[in-house]
């Protein structure tokens, strides 16, 4: 017995030694005579254990369903497991529709949302009601869409639908609400002006430069000079013109489709027939298509940095953009990959080669030029046009070099992309897409926006496949297409050193992207 023990022990130690001495243990394993758990690697089932049956995910149990009601209202839902649901109303109305109105109507309505309606007398009452339903509510407006949404307990769908329909169609726009919104907007405009963060202003400016005077180029924020023109009458006219059932989508995630349709009929359609603004009255609705124009917008401004808590450097910001495509175009996904490829961000995140920021704007720009404070690529795409831009920030004395770096990066795109780089960009885009779509509010917005814009929803799998199919030729092609359009240049801060628009335009037509050398007798 001892002999047998020692023999098996010896075999045990020998097989252990063998398994440690080679990199691939599997090839050296003999199926143990006793199903010995100590020697079987985890990837091989034990001989005597029952064969496992693995669960299979059924492929399209989670299908987006859409119905259209008689009055033009679209109802769409996406099943999802969970205690909560997110439901909302998306409206095809935004700052792009405000050409005949004082700018900022949608933004104003966003501030007046959920502030009281026919059932709830003021904002506190609304918040209390939503709390009782177990959740939160919010309104968000952008250039082309306004969304009223809430996340509540799954079984509280009916009271939520009543609340949503009431908030959208029966808002109390009395003097208190309007005054409060005006104060909040005044404060916001003041902040926009004083805060050194360039983000919201630069987005406005690059849109204005790219789409001069039309649709998405119109300002999103109310303007100080026309803010007083926004009053109950003008708001009601806007609502009457644009808050129509045929321009709306009711979207729900984590709800039953038939239930959602029935409740939409019961509450939303009913409310649409008698909104708090009367259906008779002046209407002015605009169906303009976005037209990319290109051009320059410069805002010479001094940032008052004495008030900031943290020492901030003085920066000038410039954004150079070109025409891209609408999101239904076949070239949209290549542009999205291009956006990921260029990437970028603040130099604070750069951290040098070992850190792991591999997008082009980090590798080629932020890691090489210490004086660049930020370089980011943005892609804005709408249902009839788009804009791809790179925004850079640097000290005002280096503004010319900053522009130079950006134009060179644009021009380099036509040389083609290395396979490793392209694959990384595609993988990053796919993983960002999938990670974001794990959150229910993001699924809600994705479903709602896609149905509102195109009438159908591309599933995440479809989008991942489209991303996979992007090739180097696609990227070069979209880069060429982009570079053949007239550039849009926006600058904010001390912009005296900004190169002339014609020089920037010429640089972008050259294969090396270089600005012409300027000879100055008396240095600037």
């Amino acid at each position, binding site marked *: 017995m001892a002999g047998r023990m020692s023999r098996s022990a010896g075999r045990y130690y020998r097989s252990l030694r063998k398994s440690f001495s080679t990199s691939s243990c599997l090839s050296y394993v003999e199926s143990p005579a006793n199903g010995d758990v100590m020697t079987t690697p985890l990837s091989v089932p034990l001989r005597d254990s029952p064969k496992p049956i693995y669960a299979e995910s059924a492929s399209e149990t989670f299908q987006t369903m859409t119905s259209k009601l008689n009055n033009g209202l679209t109802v769409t839902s996406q099943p999802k497991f969970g205690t909560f649901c997110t439901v909302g109303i998306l409206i095809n109305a935004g700052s792009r529709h405000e*050409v*005949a*109105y*004082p*700018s900022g109507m949608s933004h104003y309505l966003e501030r007046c949302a959920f502030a009281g309606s026919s059932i709830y007398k003021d904002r506190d009452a609304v918040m209390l009601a939503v709390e009782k339903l177990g959740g939160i509510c919010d309104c968000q407006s952008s250039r082309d869409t306004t969304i009223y949404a809430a996340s509540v307990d799954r079984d509280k769908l009916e009271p939520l639908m009543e609340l949503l329909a009431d908030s959208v169609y029966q808002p109390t726009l009395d003097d208190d609400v309007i005054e409060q919104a005006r104060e909040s907007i005044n404060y916001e405009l003041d902040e926009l002006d004083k805060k050194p963060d360039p983000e919201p202003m630069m987005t406005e400016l690059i849109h*204005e430069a790219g789409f*001069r*005077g*039309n*649709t998405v*180029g*119109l*300002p999103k924020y109310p*303007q100080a*000079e*026309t803010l*007083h*023109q926004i*009053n109950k*009458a*003008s708001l009601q*006219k806007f609502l009457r013109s644009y808050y129509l059932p045929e321009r709306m989508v009711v979207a729900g995630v984590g709800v039953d489709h038939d239930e959602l349709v029935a409740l939409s009929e019961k509450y939303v359609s009913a409310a649409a027939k008698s909104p708090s603004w009367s259906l008779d009255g*002046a209407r*002015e609705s*605009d*169906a*303009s*298509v*976005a*037209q990319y124009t290109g051009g320059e917008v410069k805002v010479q401004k001094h940032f008052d940095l004495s008030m900031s808590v943290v020492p901030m450097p003085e920066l000038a910001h410039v954004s150079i953009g070109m025409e891209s495509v609408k999101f239904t175009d076949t070239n949209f996904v290549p542009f999205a990959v291009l956006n990921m490829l260029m990437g970028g961000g603040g130099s604070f995140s750069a951290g040098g080669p070992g850190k792991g920021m591999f997008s082009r704007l980090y590798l080629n720009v932020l890691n090489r030029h210490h004086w660049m404070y930020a370089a980011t690529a943005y892609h804005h795409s709408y249902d009839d046009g788009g804009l791809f831009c790179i925004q850079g920030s640097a000290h005002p004395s280096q503004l010319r070099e900053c522009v130079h770096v950006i134009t060179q990066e644009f021009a380099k795109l036509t040389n083609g992309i290395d396979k490793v780089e392209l694959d990384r960009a595609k993988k990053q885009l796919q993983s960002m897409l999938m990670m974001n779509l794990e959150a229910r509010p993001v699924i809600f917005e994705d479903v709602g926006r896609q149905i509102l814009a195109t009438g159908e929803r591309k599933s995440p799998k479809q989008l991942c496949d489209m991303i996979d199919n992007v090739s180097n030729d696609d990227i070069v092609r979209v880069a060429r297409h982009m570079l*053949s*359009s*007239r550039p849009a240049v926006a600058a904010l801060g001390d912009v005296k050193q900004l190169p002339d628009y014609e020089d920037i335009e010429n640089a972008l*037509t050259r294969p090396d992207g270089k600005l012409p050398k300027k000879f100055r007798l008396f240095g600037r």
Partner: protein
Amino acid sequence: MLRTPICIRLFISRMKYNTRTPQKQLHATHCVFSTENVKKHVVKIAESLTSELSYSNSMKRLKLKNQAAVLVPLCTVNGELCLLFTVRSNNLPTHKGQISFPGGGVKHGDTGAVDAALRETEEEIGFPRNKVDVWTTLPHISNHTRTAAVIPVVGYLGEVNVGDMVPDRNEVTEIFTVSLTDLVNSASYTRFRIKAKKCSEHDYVMPVYFTQYRIWGLTANIVDTILSILKSDSYNQIAEGKFTVKVKLSSDVKMVS
């Protein structure tokens, strides 16, 4: 009422250049409409537009150093009435890659706008000037800052095949045609503010046509005028060929300011 001889004749003559009649498909190469009737119609309307008081006033207000002219090339492709367009070369200093009609500045040696348009057409797309049947000129169209004005010369090129034309690559990348029906179906508009931040009475509306290329700007304006003349039964004019006070500010917006 419809059965009187005059009404029947008018009805038939309208049908002749309504390119959406089913006969189009049967007689592919045979021109169903009579070009003479179309020409008479265009000439008559052009004359009435030119004699309008507002036009002659705006003519006086223009102080232009240089005159420019374009040829508006009506042509027939497979029996359908079409317009011919060029894609401007990227080598040109202005309006690279945009869609336009053949044309250019009136230079020394040209007897006028018509002559300049025909000369430029011959240079740019190689279509001989003696083969162009010039019908009329339309009132000039200026850009919205009134720094440039163009005189559109309406001419008929007959049955054409774009593949036979040889463009001058320095100026024209591509030549293509679009039928008037397709232009009507692809028409859209955009309303522009001249001051980005607020409405003004000088805001204007511009047509845009999404055919294989986007046709916009001055060219689209001219197309708009042509379509309103030739396709008045199915097309509502968008811009009236002028960049003037187009937009009535709604009364409540005006009042509050």
